[in-house]
């Protein structure tokens, strides 16, 4: 099921509805061959997460996703002991102790005898796996998506280093857990802050920008097969124009798709400035941006 060449990556991704540039396909192929994580950067909504999803579809692997946020720590990302369950078991097994410890044993001996059973409480039975541990202990290879890694704290970033370079993690009570199979790792970043050199060094880097007009047309045509040629050209050109403006948030691919879809629903065949004005709220999500776009409706649509 692995990719055999760069063109193979391109072909199979396109078959799953993701249209990659040659650069993206090359990086994905190399990451697979070199077994390296991919650090994907780019503005919101250019398909960073979608890339990982499509790869998991292409390779027919399960995708495990870890959404990063401020305050994310190991107990949320890696594992946690099921304390409540452990306490419950201790209560239930209280009576069993008399069976384990022989009645005539000295205190020291009794402690030794109980110590032989302590592993029962720190075993796989009481561990709650979180995404990262699930990804490396999975018997089948998976796609691991660590989303918006720039939102996490520097501590968490440092913790990722061991995982990303050796694909292993250390759990104090159990020892080092090595990956059975190497997951295909994607890290995405919105450039909220710069990642450390140590993290970058372990990854292959790719920057995905907004697609050029031709690629965007192909994406729209692919997702909305019923769209007319004329509307397609106009939509792509207008969105490209809007992205040039100084906006708080530039429209991303999914917003373009939403907009094109709403135009189709309204039965528009030829885009007019009034149509753009009526449907602007599918494209712009900030009040200030409405003003900027509205002041140039005519030139945007006519271009």
């Amino acid at each position, binding site marked *: 099921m692995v990719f055999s060449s760069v063109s193979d990556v391109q072909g199979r991704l396109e078959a799953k509805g993701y249209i990659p540039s040659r650069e993206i396909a090359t990086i994905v192929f*190399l990451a697979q061959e070199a077994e*390296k994580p991919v650090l994907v950067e780019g503005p919101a909504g250019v398909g960073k997460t979608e890339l990982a999803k499509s790869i998991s579809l292409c390779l027919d692997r399960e995708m495990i996703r870890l959404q990063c946020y401020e305050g994310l720590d190991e107990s949320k990302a890696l594992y946690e002991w099921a304390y409540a369950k452990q306490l419950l078991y201790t209560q239930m097994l209280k009576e069993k102790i008399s069976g384990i410890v022989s009645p005539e044993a000295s205190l020291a001996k009794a402690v030794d005898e109980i110590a032989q059973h302590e592993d029962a409480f720190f075993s796989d039975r009481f561990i709650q796996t979180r995404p990262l541990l699930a990804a490396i202990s999975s018997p089948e290879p998976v796609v691991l998506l660590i989303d918006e890694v720039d939102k996490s704290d520097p501590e968490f970033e440092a913790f990722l280093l061991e995982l990303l370079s050796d694909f292993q993690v250390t759990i104090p009570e159990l020892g080092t857990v090595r990956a059975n199979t190497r997951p295909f790792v994607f890290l995405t970043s919105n450039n909220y802050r*710069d990642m450390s050199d140590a993290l970058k*060094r372990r990854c292959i*880097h790719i920057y995905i920008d907004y697609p050029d007009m031709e690629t965007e047309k192909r994406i729209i045509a692919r997702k909305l097969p019923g769209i007319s040629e004329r509307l397609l050209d106009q939509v792509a050109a207008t969105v490209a124009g809007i992205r040039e403006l100084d906006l708080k948030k530039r429209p991303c691919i999914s917003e373009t798709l939403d907009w094109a879809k709403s135009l189709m629903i309204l039965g528009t065949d030829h885009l007019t400035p009034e149509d753009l004005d009526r449907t602007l709220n599918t494209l712009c999500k900030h009040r200030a941006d409405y003003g900027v776009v509205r002041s140039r409706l005519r030139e945007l649509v006519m271009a």
Partner: protein
Amino acid sequence: MDAVILEFVSCCRANGMRISTAETLDCLAQLNMAGPLNEQIFYTVLKANFAKSRREQDGFSRLYRLFFHDMKKGLPKAGEATDDSGEPLIDAPDLDHRLRQMVEQGEYAPGGTEQALLAFMAGEPRAFVEAVREIHDQETRVAGAVKSNLGQLTGRLEIMLAANRVRQQVPRFLGSMEGVPDEDQEALLQQAGQRLDRALAFLNEEPAPDNPGLVRTGETEQRFSHLGNIPFANLTRDETARVQDVIDQWVRKMEDVATLRFAAARKGAVDVKRTIQRSTRYLGVPVEIVRKDRPLRKGKIVTLCDVSGSVWSTARFMLNILYSLQACFARVKSHVFIDCPLEVTGLFLAHEANTAVKKILNDDRINYNARTDYGLTFQKFRDDHLSDLDKKTTLIIMGDGRSNYFNPREPVLELLRERCRRLVWLNPESRRFWGTGDSEMLRYRRYCNDARPCGNLNQLLAFIQDLVL
């Protein structure tokens, strides 16, 4: 091929990019996998391994073009290679060889500019790239009270003079060589001249990194229609008092909101020790499960405020708010500057904000007659206070970026950005005036995570709200 890549890496490093040995090894391994014959793939592999952030990519492309295209390195041998006009070039290795001979035979100071230029022409650009990088990074030593921008200019002039000398020497040297037919000599000279021009073009290009992480702020919410839109610099005494009232009220509101938020954060991991302790009340049954409090991480703030003229009127309000909201941050440190930073954290901690502001204005450690110099301030801040910055710190610079045409020293600002979590620049001037006259704002903006105008109450409150929540 390994040698070419290694040479390229050393050239990138000379230009200030940080490339580790592991990355070089990765790159070589990946080139073996993908095959180096397709240029697009070759470029992608190099870029993916060496330029690992958007901001580095422009510099990388520039070097790539220089190294693999302009210098015709590692490209087909003589006869196949053509220049732009389609004319066959003279065997490039031959010219390389001759130029290298010239270095060996001529009496050039080792490590000197002429040698670097000749090496550049012979296809080894590292020394020259390093020299150019040094000029861009140059930190002019301040001699006495006289400051000038001449350091950079002198550096450039030196290289240009050296280029002229080389231009004169090359024909003489090639002419003295035996066994070179006249027509070949002509072509060789032309080729050498072109390479020298390329070196000068490289010298004159200004590196301008793209900054996609820059937060875009449009218009701010109009909280206060009249009072909120008056520039701080134009407030009358009466209005100042009203602004102060509004701020006090707003600060109390923010504190409430922030406290609620911290209270809601108590949902950490189970505190086993305390759970067991509590369970003894119920005969060892863990009825009450205690969780560890995990307060939200509070950011550290370091501010650097220009205290000259119009900027100060805004900065005083901002400092006032920041210190009133201290509970929301782990630490607030502040510095003021005109041409060198001065830490004033102590004043704000010891006194109420308005008194502290008055004390700063009368502080004799600040030379109010000096001319604002951002470059020097950054440099001194880096020398004395760099340890204050870490990956949890937000650095807020407040100033108009008008540096009296002194050296802006933006590489220092870049270093500061790399050290802190976010770099925010608040400018009391509206965007229209950025980059006009002696404003270096457009240049500095490339290194900020957020650069926004902040000259009235609405803008200031919107910013602080973003910062706290």
